[in-house]
């Protein structure tokens, strides 16, 4: 009897130790490896910086359940495919590629690694293990336009564009539509710099816009150069992607920024739970992925009130920026009153709305 109970105890202890060992194996199991591919340097103060903030948010939220890696300054050339592939070979299970030019390389690598989850920002190609995601950033651009339209003294808004692709044209249009909703007399002047990140070129473009009479500047490029020019020239500007108030404390009225973290955390959790699925995500202000920074005190209270009201209307769906009546810059009607632009048209937009000066470079 005695021996038997000792034996029993021994079995019990052994199994307890064994199960403890087993759980400790599970705990010590590799954390989920997540990788990010960046177009610019993490210190660009704009697009890439903001994605990197998202990466840090994932680390903060999920702690030792994840391990993140990033590669910066990856050109949108043949090199992207190698970098993405190497990250998959290194055992990263969730890979975010954060620029449009990585679309085809990401798709190619996704086919080679069916058990790795890929996420491509701003593209349109998906696969069973490749999702796409982007923000409805034009919602924020529209709201910047509301402030600009109210506060401009010259009725001339300036916009520094990177490349004439749908994403950027959408933002220029939304900025202009927001301004025209409160001031139908405004014109938006656009200068294209053909780069995402070149502080020198962005600065020149901003200076030219100011010389042409623009007193409200916005940009769809990645550095804070435009805000810096506005500060020097004593005009106003808006932060883009990141809060750029430190570069222009008087000039920046608010900033249209991305909070990629909310999405990155959700996707990481889904991989951890085994519930990841492909698809196309378009999140806006409502979902917390587009965030407008607190207004500069220079914004008059009545403008601030209007801004808040419009933001609320966007969040509750009563205001949809791309809805009719809408004309293009040559006066042709594009949307009848009450019509809403379909997502596919919005994704491929290649014309300016009424109020934008000039034509899109072809």
């Amino acid at each position, binding site marked *: 009897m005695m021996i038997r109970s000792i034996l029993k105890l021994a079995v019990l202890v052994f199994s307890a130790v064994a199960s403890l060992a087993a759980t400790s194996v599970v705990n010590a199991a590799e954390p989920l490896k997540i990788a990010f591919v960046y177009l610019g340097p993490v210190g660009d103060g704009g697009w890439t910086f903001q994605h990197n903030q998202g990466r840090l948010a994932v680390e903060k939220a999920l702690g030792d359940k994840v391990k993140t890696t990033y*590669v*910066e300054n990856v*050109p949108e*050339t*043949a090199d992207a*495919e*190698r970098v993405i592939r190497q990250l998959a070979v290194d055992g990263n299970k969730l890979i975010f590629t954060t620029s449009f*030019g990585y679309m085809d390389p990401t798709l190619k690598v996704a086919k080679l690694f069916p058990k790795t989850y890929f996420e491509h920002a701003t593209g349109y190609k998906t696969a069973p293990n490749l999702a796409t995601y982007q923000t409805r950033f034009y919602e924020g651009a529209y709201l910047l336009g509301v402030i600009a339209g109210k506060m401009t003294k010259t009725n001339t808004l300036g916009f520094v564009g990177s*490349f004439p692709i*749908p994403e950027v044209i959408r933002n220029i249009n939304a900025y202009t539509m927001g301004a025209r909703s409160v001031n139908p007399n405004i014109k938006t002047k656009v200068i294209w710099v053909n780069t995402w990140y070149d502080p020198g070129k962005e600065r020149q473009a901003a200076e030219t816009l100011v010389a042409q009479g623009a007193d409200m500047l916005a940009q769809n490029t990645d550095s804070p150069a435009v805000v810096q020019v506005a500060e020097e020239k004593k005009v106003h500007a808006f932060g883009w992607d990141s809060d750029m108030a430190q570069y222009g404390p008087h000039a920046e009225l608010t900033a249209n920024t991305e909070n990629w973290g909310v999405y990155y955390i959700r996707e990481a959790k889904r991989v951890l739970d085994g519930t990841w699925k492909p698809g196309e995500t378009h999140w806006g202000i409502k979902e917390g992925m587009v965030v407008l920074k607190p207004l500069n005190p220079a914004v008059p209270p009545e403008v601030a009130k209007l801004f808040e009201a419009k933001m609320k209307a966007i969040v509750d769906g009563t205001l949809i920026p791309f809805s009719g009546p809408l004309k293009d810059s040559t006066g042709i009607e594009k949307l009848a009153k009450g019509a809403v632009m379909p997502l596919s048209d919005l994704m491929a937009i290649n014309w300016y709305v009424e109020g934008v000066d000039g034509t899109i470079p072809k």
Partner: protein
Amino acid sequence: MYRLEKRPQPSAVMRVVSPLLAAVAMLVTGFVVFTLLGKDPAQAFYVFFIKPINTSYGFGELLLKASPLILCGLGLALCYRANVWNIGAEGHLTLGAITGGGVALWLGDSTSLFALPLMLLAGALGGAAWGAIPAWLRNRFHTNEILVSLMLVYIAQLLLSYLVHGPWRDPAGYNFPQSKAFGEAELLPMLIQQTRVNGSLVLALVLAGASWFFSEKTFAGFRLQVAGLAPAAAAYAGFSEKRNVWLVMLLSGASAGLAGVCEVAGPIGQLQASISPGYGFAAIIVAWVGRLHPLGVVLGGLLMSLLYLGGEAAQMQLALPSAVTGLFQGVLLFYLLAADIFINYRLRNTATATPPNAAPSSTEAGV
């Protein structure tokens, strides 16, 4: 007081050895930098120089990335041998991609065997045409080919940007700046399965051989050498400087143009706004590290390619910033140029009369 004094007889041995010394000095610097950054230097070296190429895919990437560097470097080496300071290989490359890619788009889904040769020819001609502009301007108006060839880089890039944003944009591509994908017959054949190594490597090696033959065995090559080493003698011998300028600019343009068409007909497979991460500029370092010799250019191209791959690996494995790649490339060129100074000059202490035979030893010249 120290001053530099021209050596009567620069060492021929050191001229060949100096790239190796520069590479060693670069490694020593890397060792110091890695240590200062708090990384284990042995592991850092492994990650930077070994890990990227210890798989067949990785080695393939080394060859893939070296090919455009070699193609551009060969042409630049010819130019520099003839004292023609062409720094516009990036533009020649871009134009080659445009003309070669343009042929592919024009042919559409052709299955013709001639599609690829036609594209390569068009790429070479496009690059040569871009090279002809600075050549003509220099010969006709004595313009500075350094400035002209550099400025033409930006024009070529903007031309490509215009084409992919406008007339050559894929109508089914949501207005994104990309052309249609090229057909199967318009892509370079793969050399090794499971890698991305393609026919451009063969092209680069064949051209390296041809370049050696041209420089060493032909009269035209001899004329170039003389023009570079002793312009006065070349003029006295009646060698036309203008003809040399035309020759090297056209050849280097064609060679870089091939690099461009090989990028778009190789790993990229379509035309898009950015096709080169600066191969044409990196090839300037390749040409000098390779001592302007075709074999040296091949080795220099491989080394530069490895520095790119190592920089990526260092980011992924060691969380080092991407600037590490540029740092190594810059340091390599710096040491090489420093070594060249000491090949042609020696340091003499003029305050204390040093006997002339106490010249600095060769190791000092290296580091």
